[in-house]
């Protein structure tokens, strides 16, 4: 026994709140960076097609990353223990696909300056559902309410300031603008509601890696149905994809980065709830802004007023994130989190002790041996082959890139991956 204890790897003792905050911030870095590869698509391709390319890249990544980290044996065991959650994972994927398509309509009709802040309200929608359905913030002190609600509102307001500063609003017809606004509000509602399945899965003790593996089928299925509908059948859709062959690599890479960010977002939703985790990851706009400004030189010649607005918007967003980070749930709120967990256990016949251990960052399922399978190597090889094949057929894009800043930002993206990934491993073994 003592020998076993001496060779067992040391587990980190970092609090789950801090871990969740780090995951939320790492999610923001990767979700923001996911926008960068899509900026290399300069030719006249439909935004819907670019979104579809990202979903296809995400589909590949959502299978390979969980397989690499945990193995298919673990994933299937986890799913077998909570098969009802497959329904919610599929629902979440479908909500994402419809929400993303609505976002494309919104950006096309009213531009980023109006669309993005409205889209960003998804964190407030998530906060509302977290309070109403999962007892988040219940039993919290007034100052914690102020920190979370104030912080989330500040992030939305900061997003609005940044969007106004960085985009030029095109004069669109009133009817078209109204359609765009409705689409943006709809997208915010879809994304905000998508966090209900996230939270449901994690208070039921599901592993985020299992969740995203199923999520991607809902996402891919819905985007395919939408694509068939939009392009008028399978043949026109295939023709459009073939025409876009030379640029598909970039949205694929974007989709891959998106999955890394989304995984961190899932862990943030698990360990600090959707009310706190989602606003933190919604600061991704700051990173998208950094890539645009520093690497792609998008704001060269920007007026002094706009520069001041950018600094103000970024500062407000950072202040909002800091405010939420400091709002650790008090014991009284944690009791309500546990009550929400017990509701799931009672309703779906889950082992409460087991679920409580997973919710607390333990991983009882990992104690059972899950040998690696030959097809896991095949999945890795297939995923790598898809990326190599797409990269080989990609045409060089003639676009200005500031290489030193690109190196700095790539390093700034890799470092949180390494730090937060290793923290997750040391504290929870990716539970």
């Amino acid at each position, binding site marked *: 026994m003592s020998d076993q204890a001496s060779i067992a790897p040391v587990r980190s003792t970092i609090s789950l709140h801090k871990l969740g905050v780090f995951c939320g911030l790492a999610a923001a870095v990767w979700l923001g960076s996911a926008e960068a590869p899509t900026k290399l698509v300069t030719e006249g391709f439909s935004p819907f097609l670019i979104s579809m390319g990202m979903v296809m890249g995400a589909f590949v990544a959502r299978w390979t990353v969980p397989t690499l980290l945990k193995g298919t044996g673990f994933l299937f065991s986890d799913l077998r223990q909570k098969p009802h959650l497959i329904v919610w994972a599929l629902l979440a994927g479908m*909500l994402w696909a419809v929400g993303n398509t609505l976002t494309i309509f919104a950006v096309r009709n009213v531009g980023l300056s109006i669309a993005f802040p409205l889209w960003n309200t998804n964190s407030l929608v998530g906060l509302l559902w977290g309070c109403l359905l999962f007892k988040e913030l219940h039993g919290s002190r007034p100052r914690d309410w102020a920190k979370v609600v104030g912080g989330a509102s500040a992030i939305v307001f900061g997003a609005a300031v940044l969007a106004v500063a960085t985009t030029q609003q095109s004069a669109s017809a009133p009817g078209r603008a109204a359609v765009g606004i409705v*689409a943006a509000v709809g997208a915010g509602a879809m994304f905000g509601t998508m966090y209900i399945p996230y939270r449901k899965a994690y208070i039921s003790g599901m592993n985020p890696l299992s969740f995203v593996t199923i999520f991607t089928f809902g996402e891919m299925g819905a985007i395919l149905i939408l694509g068939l509908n939009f392009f008028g059948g399978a043949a026109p859709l295939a023709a459009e994809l073939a025409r876009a062959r030379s640029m598909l690599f970039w949205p694929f890479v974007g989709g891959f980065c998106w999955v890394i960010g989304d995984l961190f977002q899932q862990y943030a939703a698990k360990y600090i709830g959707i009310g706190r985790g989602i606003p933190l990851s919604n600061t991704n706009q700051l990173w998208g802004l950094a890539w645009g400004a520093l690497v792609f030189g998008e704001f060269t010649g920007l007026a002094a007023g706009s520069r001041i607005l950018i600094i103000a918007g970024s500062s407000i967003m950072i202040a909002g994130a800091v405010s939420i980070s400091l709002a650790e749930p008090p014991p009284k709120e944690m009791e309500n989190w546990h009550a929400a967990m017990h509701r799931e256990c009672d309703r779906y016949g889950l082992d409460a002790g087991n679920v409580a251990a997973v919710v607390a960052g333990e991983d009882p399922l990992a104690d059972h041996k899950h040998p690696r399978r030959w097809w896991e190597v095949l999945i890795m090889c297939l995923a790598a082959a898809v990326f190599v094949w797409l990269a080989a057929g990609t045409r060089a894009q003639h676009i200005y890139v500031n290489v030193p800043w690109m190196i700095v930002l790539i390093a700034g993206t890799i470092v949180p991956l390494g730090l937060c990934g290793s923290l997750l491993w040391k504290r929870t073994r990716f539970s």
Partner: protein
Amino acid sequence: MKRSQWICILTDVHFWVPVVVLALGTALLMTLR
């Protein structure tokens, strides 16, 4: 999945809220085309 689990799912408010929002969003998307 057992029949009883399906009944639990279909009587769960956590199921119907996303379903209704998804239906509304899809309907909105179709009208925007």
